[in-house]
């Protein structure tokens, strides 16, 4: 059986038999990899706690017929803080579920992989704003999947500007001429926060939010738009999103 080496982030795991698990991983070189970790549920397994969801690992795998087999796993970053806190864990679960939905087997996925690592790092460094980090991740995930929202120009005619109507199916903000009549305009602060979620450096997100008038309400509105946008373009909602405390 051919052996190969890849980095990966553990997306999710399923119990298999008495002591094994099937591990779904996002790797930069081979996209989504599904592999069996034998004996991992036994206390004292040589994999120990390395193959828990969110772990960033360096792996050696054997190519199998339907599933690959993990032969060695070294931790690069455990992201165990994400697992230890309910709010972070709910946000992290939504992140990996989104990546799991979009990634394909045997397809280079460097952009998705780096985005997921950035998102997990941001969760750990700004644990007081988990849902803000999540919304930024989700809007960037939509872009990585080919549904980049138009936020600086009209999604329909291209006229530049921070327009006030968000057209979910149109793919972004719509100018007054293109917006369907009767559309509810967004507050400027929501439009600006959407722009920040899509393009600001991760570390700048909390400050961007703090500068908003009534940050809690603005964040909820922006978050709801991000979720509707992603649900529309992915076809169905992410299950873990419901569990995120907001």
């Amino acid at each position, binding site marked *: 059986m051919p052996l190969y080496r890849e980095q990966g982030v553990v997306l999710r795991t399923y119990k298999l038999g008495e002591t094994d698990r099937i591990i779904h991983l996002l790797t930069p070189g081979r996209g989504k990899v599904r592999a069996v970790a034998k004996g991992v549920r036994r206390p004292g397994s040589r994999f120990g706690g390395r193959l828990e969801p969110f772990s960033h690992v360096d792996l050696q795998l054997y190519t199998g017929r339907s599933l690959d087999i993990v032969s060695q796993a070294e931790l690069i970053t455990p992201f165990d803080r994400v*697992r230890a806190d309910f709010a972070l864990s709910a946000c992290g679960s939504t992140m990996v579920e989104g990546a799991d939905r979009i990634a394909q087997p045997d397809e280079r996925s460097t952009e998705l992989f780096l985005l997921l690592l950035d998102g997990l790092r941001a969760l750990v460094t700004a644990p007081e704003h988990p849902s803000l980090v999540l919304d930024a991740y989700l809007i960037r995930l939509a872009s990585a999947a080919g549904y980049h929202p138009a936020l600086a120009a009209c999604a329909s005619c291209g006229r530049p500007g921070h327009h006030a109507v968000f057209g979910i199916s149109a793919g972004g903000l719509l100018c007054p001429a293109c917006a369907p009549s009767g559309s509810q305009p967004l507050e400027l602060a929501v439009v600006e926060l959407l722009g920040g979620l899509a393009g600001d450096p991760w570390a700048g997100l909390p400050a961007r939010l703090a500068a908003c008038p009534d940050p809690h309400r603005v964040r909820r509105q922006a978050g709801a738009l991000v979720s509707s946008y992603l649900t529309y373009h992915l076809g169905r909602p992410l299950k873990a999103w419901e569990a995120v405390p907001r």
Partner: protein
Amino acid sequence: MYEGPIQDLIEEFGRLPGVGPKSAQRLAFHVLTMDAADAERLARALVAVKEKVRFCVRCFNVSEQDECRICRDARRDPSLLCVVEEPRDLMAIEKTGEFRGRYHVLGGAISPIDGVGPDQLRVAELFARLGEEDITEVVLATNPNSEGEATASYLARTLKAMEVAVSRIASGLPVGGDLEYADEVTLGRAFAGRRAL
């Protein structure tokens, strides 16, 4: 594809957790070669478990009566409550002989990605017990994996507001193992949970 009763049996076995199509076939053909009396005993045990065993109304452990053996036992310490995911975990802790309190079985763990939240578990029943019983300490003994940790974190937050002592079972190095082979997460936890001697 077989036909008739043998195929039915293969399909039934195949529905069980951890049984793949190959094992389901092997089990079904094993039953075929069993003595009639053995097969009947197996069938009776299956029916009896559904007829006679139910969940304890208080702790949701498996029980033959309204309340399970542990909840009825007056020698158990009523001030200590241990929260576990499944009845199997309760049995594993019972075997240690280390715990003399009572239990609460959640029926699973919080898993946002599977759509399992507190409402799908016996969490409301747990909080209700704290109001009704004289419980002073809750030990969270959910699994040390991502779902178990998320569950413990969720419960701890609410329980602390209810003015009850909350503890988490220690996780660390397996007894009999070598330190050098431990992974960083496990070893890190062992250090965080170190105790004075």
